[in-house]
């Protein structure tokens, strides 16, 4: 593990910290159009050759590059020569053919294009310290107008082959993580009841990032002929472009950024501008994209910190780290590492949100069980139970027959309470039955004639348990009977466009309020029950009327 870590770190810093085999910083090739095998020789005088290639069309041309080699330890041998170049070519090292990239045109046979990066083994006998010559017999039948210089690198042959693969393996590790994250969040998005845009964006970012990593190392998976070289860069460019747009968008959602559309519009404009003005300059464009993305993200996150949003500081630090990496590390990796840091920040934000959603859910569960308890308590709270029992005692002593009826009425009310106590919604009929049983119990206690009237009840409707029952209790408690010692309750059900409602009227004289009422708990219970089942889609109005009291519960369609 340690070992691999060291190798990885070494890879990161290799370009700056390692003594190169080729002494020249940037060896300059010279060109000559035409074809002569003598041009491969080490001793050939190329003084009058050009440093730029003339128009060669589909024809053969030659390039010669002088390389100065440093002394090389035996353990760095055999040396390999890595050539980064457009076109198709045969390579001669000090006049000796060491390999070819693609197949050069021959007679009527057209060119079979080579790939941009090729590696050749150089015999140990030819790599003594000092001056050497790489001569290339070339053609560039495709994209003949593209003038790319030729890049050389020398290193131990096996290292040239394996080091990029080791890098790729680490990058693939990262890519795999992003692929899994992407799939997970896509599943999450498509399977959740309340689909959230930010989850979709996050999943997309992970997927694009996976694609970006794969595209970056595509050359190790397949041979890309040089004519198709730019397609890959173009794809990478657009992937970076999209990611640079999506990441700030994601942050605007997470941090409730107020000027979201303005910022995203501006961002899109700047990114398009960068694409247009730097067309063809792929590395620079990608670097500028990520810079713009960082600036936009910083704006959103700093605003988030000012707004005291959760996770603001952590993300700010993450962005800062990402910016540092972007600035100070070697480009090829820095982009990915800085992106990874940002995606980690996003993942962290998700974790925060998930945990807050979980605690909300827990609270909802706690609320539900509290409401359940409250419902059960209605019948065992001392005021109800002890007053009922006292009246019952009296009835039993005075008139056992009536007493027995009273006990039956109470037991029927208990039965209904019991059967509804664990539900969050019950059939309206059951609720009405509960109310009527309660009235018959209260008739024995209060010796008032209670009348129940109902209009327009739709038996198919559901209602949270004991909501009407609570309104009824209030009506009994706070009313003075009408003439004839009676109180009338009326339940009316109506529907309208987008809503259905219950109006519960009490026809009686309202008792004057004397002390600070302990009440209000009843309404709290009703509100909590309505919220539990209907979220925000309900209203409750309760007020005195000329005839008594009227409460309206309106349930809005979603």
């Amino acid at each position, binding site marked *: 593990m340690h070992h691999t870590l060291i190798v990885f770190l070494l890879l990161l810093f290799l370009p700056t910290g390692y003594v190169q085999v080729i002494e020249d910083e940037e060896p300059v090739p010279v060109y000559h159009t035409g074809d002569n095998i003598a041009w491969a020789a080490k001793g050939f005088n190329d003084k009058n050759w050009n440093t730029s290639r003339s128009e060669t069309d589909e024809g053969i041309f030659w390039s010669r590059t002088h390389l100065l080699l440093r002394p090389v330890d035996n353990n760095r041998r055999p040396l390999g020569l890595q050539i980064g170049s457009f076109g198709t070519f045969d390579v001669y090292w000090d006049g000796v053919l060491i390999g070819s990239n693609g197949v050069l045109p021959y007679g009527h046979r057209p060119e079979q294009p080579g790939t941009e990066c090729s590696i050749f083994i150089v015999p140990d006998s030819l790599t003594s310290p000092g001056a050497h010559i790489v001569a290339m017999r070339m053609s560039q039948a495709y994209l003949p107008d593209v003038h790319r210089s030729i890049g050389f690198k020398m290193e131990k042959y096996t290292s040239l082959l394996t080091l990029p693969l080791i890098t790729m393996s680490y990058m693939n590790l990262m890519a795999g993580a992003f692929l899994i994250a992407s799939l997970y969040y896509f599943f999450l998005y498509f399977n959740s009841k309340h689909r959230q845009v930010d989850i979709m964006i996050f999943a997309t970012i992970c997927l694009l990032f996976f694609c970006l990593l794969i595209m970056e190392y595509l050359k190790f998976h397949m041979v890309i002929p040089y004519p198709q070289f730019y397609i890959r860069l173009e794809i990478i460019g657009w992937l970076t472009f999209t990611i640079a747009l999506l990441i700030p968008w994601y942050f605007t959602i997470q941090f409730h950024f107020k000027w979201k559309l303005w910022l995203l519009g501006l961002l899109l404009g700047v990114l398009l501008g960068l694409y247009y003005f730097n067309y063809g300059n792929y590395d620079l464009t990608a670097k500028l994209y990520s810079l713009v993305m960082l600036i936009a993200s910083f704006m959103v996150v700093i605003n988030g910190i000012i707004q005291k949003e959760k996770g603001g500081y952590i993300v700010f630090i993450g962005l800062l780290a990402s910016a540092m990496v972007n600035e100070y590390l070697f480009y090829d990796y820095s982009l990915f590492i800085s992106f990874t840091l940002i995606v980690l920040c996003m993942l962290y934000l998700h974790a925060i949100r998930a945990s807050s959603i979980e605690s909300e859910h827990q609270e909802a569960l706690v609320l539900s069980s509290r409401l359940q308890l409250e419902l059960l308590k209605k019948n065992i709270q*001392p*005021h109800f*139970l*002890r*007053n009922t*029992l*006292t*009246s*019952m*005692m*009296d*009835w039993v002593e005075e008139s056992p027959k009536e007493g027995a009826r009273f006990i039956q009425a109470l037991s029927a009310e208990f039965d209904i309470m019991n059967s509804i106590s664990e539900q969050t919604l019950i059939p309206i009929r059951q609720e009405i039955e509960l109310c009527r049983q309660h009235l018959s119990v209260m008739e*024995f*206690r*209060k*010796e*008032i004639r209670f009348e129940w009237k109902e209009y327009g009840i739709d038996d198919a409707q559901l209602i949270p348990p004991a909501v009407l029952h609570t309104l009824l209790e*209030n009506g009994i*408690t*706070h009313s003075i009977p009408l003439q004839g010692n009676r109180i009338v309750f009326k339940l009316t059900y109506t529907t309208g466009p987008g809503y259905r409602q219950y109006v519960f009227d009490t026809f009686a004289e309202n*008792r*004057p*309020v*004397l*002390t*600070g*009422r*302990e*009440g209000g708990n009843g309404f709290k219970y009703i509100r909590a029950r309505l919220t539990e089942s209907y979220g925000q889609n309900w209203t409750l109005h309760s007020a005195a009327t000329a005839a008594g009291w009227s409460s309206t519960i309106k349930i809005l369609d979603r």
Partner: protein
Amino acid sequence: MNILIIEDEARIAKRLQRMTAGFFGNKPTEIIICDSLQKGLSHISSKPVDLLLLDLNLNGDNGFEVLELMVSASFHTIIVSANTDKAITAFAYGVLDFVPKPFDQDRLFRALGRFLAPAIKTHEDIKYLAVKTAGQVKLISITEVMYIKGAGIYTELHLKNGRQELHDKSLELLEQLLPVSFQRIHRSYIVNMEYAEKILVQPGSRYGVSLKNEEILPVGRSKYKELRNKTL
């Protein structure tokens, strides 16, 4: 005898009325039922009342808010309530008894018996005496009371801080409510023994109690022996 029942449960009110009437039997008794605090209060302010039977939770009104007012009045209050957890508080305020619902005849008779026999002391601890001053009811901790002096139909509470408060209850009614540390030493005096220092025997067989603040209260001849026995 005027008895007021404040109870919003019609059946229970009738039960109280029936049993109370039965208890007092052939004594001329008027029993009034009020089904709300408001009616009860207006009745109290206009008619004389000797005993109040009060429910604490009426039509959603909190009876406790008027309990202070009731116990500051000249009559005894018996609470008849479902809120049994409030019993200790009710006694602390100075009610004669707390009858928990559901109640039978025996339990109610016991409470009414106390009313008829002032010698029976309440066993629960009264903690406050409620007095009306300037239209407001104020609770005075009984540990602040040094002695109580009868003054016609009122009583004067003499407090540790030197101030005096008038209480509407007679010396007899207060004696019944107060704990044993309060001793009747004279026709017109109840003393808090916590503040008594020594018993004085003065020339001419006159007795007295000196208090910590050097005040001397007279001790009735008949009470002297009782007092000596208790303090010895």
